[in-house]
C-alpha cells in the first residue's frame, strides 16, 4: 500500500486525484468520512470523476452528470458502465492506496 497523505488533505464531500504508475486515481472523502478510490475516468466519456459533486457514496461526473457508485464503480440509475475501483484504507489518519491494476486499454 502506498501512503498518499492525510485524510484531511481532502475536504469532506470532496475529492483529489493522485497519479500512480501513470494511472490517474480519484480519491474521495464522503460526508460520513469514508475514503474511496476509483480510476479517475467516467465509463461514459472519460470525464474526471474527481471533479464531480459527491453525495452519499456516489459521485456525479462533471461532464454529463452520470452517477457512479464509489463502492463498486458501477454507473447508477439507467446508465450502464463501470469504472475500476482501487483498494484503499485509512490507518492512523493516513490514506493508503493499493497500486492499481491497469485496465486493459
Amino acid at each position, binding site marked *: 500500500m*502506498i501512503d498518499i497523505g492525510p485524510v484531511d488533505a481532502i475536504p469532506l464531500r*470532496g475529492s*483529489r486525484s493522485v497519479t500512480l504508475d501513470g494511472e490517474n486515481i480519484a480519491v474521495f472523502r464522503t460526508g460520513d468520512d469514508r475514503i474511496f478510490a476509483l480510476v479517475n475516468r467516467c465509463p461514459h466519456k472519460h470525464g474526471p470523476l474527481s*471533479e464531480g*459533486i459527491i453525495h452519499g457514496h456516489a459521485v456525479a461526473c462533471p461532464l454529463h452528470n452520470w452517477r457512479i457508485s464509489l463502492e463498486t464503480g458501477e454507473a447508477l440509475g439507467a446508465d450502464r458502465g463501470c469504472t475500476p475501483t482501487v483498494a484503499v484504507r485509512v490507518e492512523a489518519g493516513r490514506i493508503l*492506496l493499493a497500486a492499481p491494476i491497469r485496465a486493459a486499454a
Partner: protein
Amino acid sequence: MDLQTGLDPALDPDGDGDLPFADPRVRQHLVVIGNGMAGCRAVEELLARDGGNWRVTIFGAEAHVNYNRIMLSPVLAGEKSFDEIVINPRGWYDDNAIDLVTSDPVIAIDRASRTVTSRSGRTVGYDRLLIATGSDPFIIPVPGHDLPGVISFRDMTDVDTMLAASAAGGSAVVIGGGLLGLEAAHGLALRGMQVTVLHLMPTLMERQLDEAAGWLLKSALEARGQVILTGADTAAIYGEGRVEGVRLKDGREIPASLVVMAVGIRPSVKLARECGLAVGRGIQVDDHMVTSDANVLAVGECVEHDGQVYGLVAPLWDMCRSLADGLIGTANPYRGSVTSTKLKVSGIDVFSAGDFSGGEGCEDIVLRDAARGIYKRVVLRDDRVIGAVLYGDTADGSWYFDLLKKGTDIADLRDVLIYGQAFATGGAQADPNAAVAALPADAEICGCNGVTKGQVVGCIEAGAASLDAVRQTCKASASCGSCTGLVETLLALTLGEEAVESGPKTMCGCTSFGHDDVRREIVAQGMRSIPEVMQRLHWSTPDGCSSCRPALNYYLLCALPGEYQDDQQSRFVNERLHANIQKDGTYSVVPRMWGGLTNPRELRAIADVVEKYDAPMVKVTGGQRLDIFGIKKEDLTAVWADLNAAGMVSGHAYGKSLRTVKTCVGSEWCRFGTQDSAGLGVQAERMTWGSWMPHKFKIAVSGCPRNCAEATIKDFGIICVDSGYELHVGGNGGMKVRVTDLLCKVATEAEALEHCAAFIQLYREDARYLERTAPWIERVGLPYIQERLLGDADERAALAERFHHSQRFSQDDPWAQRVEGADAHLHRQLEPAE
C-alpha cells in the same frame, strides 16, 4: 381588453366608458361599514345575484383592501406575503364600481336621515346599511396594558409591529394560549424571539381541545423551544416608558420587549349600540341578517343570531348567502352553524368539532398511538356523534363533522368508528381514495373558504385540472392548505390520476418539496446551512444530490449575503475551479473585458499566456471577449496570476452569474449612435460582475434601435434612443430563442442602472435555481415583474439596495483569491509519500 379604458369591450359595446348597468340614479345604494371578510363576501354574494341594481360603498378602518384575516399568522411566520393573502384586490373594487374608502372608519350612524359619517367628516346616505365591523380584541385591564410594546394580534398593523420587534430579537410574552395566541407565539418563535406563552387555564386551547390533546400540544410546543406556563394569571405589565416584562400573581416576572395580548375577541357593537339598534352580546339579527331596523343589516363576528355569537370564519359563508338572498327578496333563512376547527399549530394538525365536554349520557371512544403522536376521541350520545377531537392525524375530521352535522345514526359503525372512514365504511382500507370518494357532495372540504366537495368537483369538471387551478377558481386549499390532500384526491378521482396536471415539481428525489417551498422555508425559518435545511425539511438522503445541493447553496447565499459560508463541495466543478471544464478534462479561461473593450496590455498578457502554457486555441466568444482553451487544472492558478498582473479578473464565463455585457460603440464613434452605449455597458458590468444568480445572466447595451449588440435576446437589454433608454427583459438566444419584453423607458443612465440592479435582485430572489429569466418571466408573467419594479419606486429602490448590499460581498476576484493561496492546494494532485 381595451387598453385605453381598461374596460372589457364585451361589457362596454358602445365604447363610451359607461357600463350598461341600470341608471345609477335608480340603483339602490348599499353602504358597508367594514372592509373585511364578512362585508366583502356579502357584497360578492349580492353582486353575483343582482349586480345591476346596487351601487356599493365600503368604509374600511384599515389602509388595505380586503385580506384574509385568518392568514395573518402565515404572514407573521414569513410563509406568505401580504399580497398572497389579499382576497379582493383593488381591481375587484374597480371592476364592480365599488366606492372603497380606506383608513376612514365610520364613527356615527343616523338612522333617521339614513346617513353615516366617517372620522374625516364625510357623510354618505344609504338605502341599506350593512354593519360588518367584526370583533375587537379583548385587552385585560391590568396595570401597564397601555404601555408601548403591548399589542393585540388582529390586523396588519399588529403584524408589522411584531415583525419590527422580532427584528430586534429578545424575548416576547404572549398572553393567551388559544388559537390566536399560539399562532402569534409560533410566528414570533420562527422570527427568532424567545417566546413565553401565559395561559390562565390548565390546558391550552381548552375551547377546541380536551385535556389530553391540549397536553400533547403543550409537550410538542415545548419541544420546539417555547416556554408554556399554564394556570398563569397576569398581575401586571411593567416597564419604564415601554414594556419590560410581565408579572404574574404568584410573583414570577418574565422579561419581554414585546407583549401580545390574545385572550379573546368581542363583537364590535359600539356603532350599533350608539344608534339604538337592538344589541345583546352582538348586534341582534334575524334569519336574513336584518337588525331591529329593516334598513340596517349586520353580518359576521359582530352579530348575535339566535343567541349565538361566532368567532370563526366558517359561519360567515352561510350568513352571507342568507343575507344576499334576503336582499333580493328570496327566502333562505340562516339556521345557525355548527362549527369545527381544523388547523395547524406549529405544523401540528389539530381538529375539533361539536361538544366534547362529556357529561350525562355521553360516551367516549378514544384511540391513542403515543409513538406516532396521535390521539383521537369521538364523543357519542344516543348513537350519534356530538363531538370529536383529533390530534396528529386529522384526515377523518371532515367525515366525523359530516356525521355530526347530519345526526347520522352510527350504531352499526360503532365498533370501527374510531379507525376512520376508510376502515369503518368497509373493504376500502387499501384505497385511501375511497374515503374521499364516499364523502357526500355537501361535505365541507375547505373550512377556511367554506367550499364543499360538490363545489370542488364542479370546478374540476369545469376545467380546473390542477391544484393551482382549483385554488384559483373555487379557493379550496388556497388558505391554510390543510385540505390540500383532499383536493388532490378529488382531482385524481374526478379526472383520473394521469389527467391531473402536476403543480411545481419537487426539487429532486431527495425531497417532497418544490423549489418555491424550500426557498420560502429557508427564509421563514431562518435556516443557515445546507445540513440544517436537509434536517428541518426531512431530506430523504444523507447529503442530498448533485441537483439539490447547488440549489440550496444558492438559495442560502442569496438569503444571507455576507453571512453564509459558501459550500464549495456543493458547487459544480466550473464554479469551484473558476474555469470551464472541457471534454478532455482541461479547462478554458476567460478574463473579463469590461463592455467588450480591451487594450494592448491585456492583449499582450493574453498572448503571453497562450504561448507560455501552450494553449492550443484562442477564440473570440459571442460575449465579446477571448477564451483561452486547453489549460491544465494544475496551471490554472499560474495563468490567473499572469492575467491578474495585467489588471484582468475572472470573466465568470463558467458561473450561474453575470456573464458579459455586450455593447456597440455608440455615440462616441458611430454616426447613428444616440447615447454612449459602450460607456453605459462598462458601468453596468462594473455594477453587476461577480453576482451569483439562479442561472447565467447576460446584458447588452445597443446605442441605437439598429441594435447591433443584440440587446433584445439578452436577460437585460438596453436600447439607447434619442430621448433616453428602453429597458428590455427576459430575452434568450439559446436553445429556445425568446425576444425580450419591453419593461419601460427611462431618461437617464442612473435610472437605467437602478432598474437593472432591481431587476437582477428580483430575479435572484424569485426565480428557481437553473431557471433563466426567459422561462421565469413566462411563468410569473410580465405584469408581475412590472408591478414589482415599476409599481412602487420605493420597492424598486429597496430591491436595488439589496442587490448592492449583496455585491459588497461578491466583488472579490476569485482568481486573485486563489492566486493568493486560498484553496490553492485543491488545484494540485496528492503526492505519494516515498
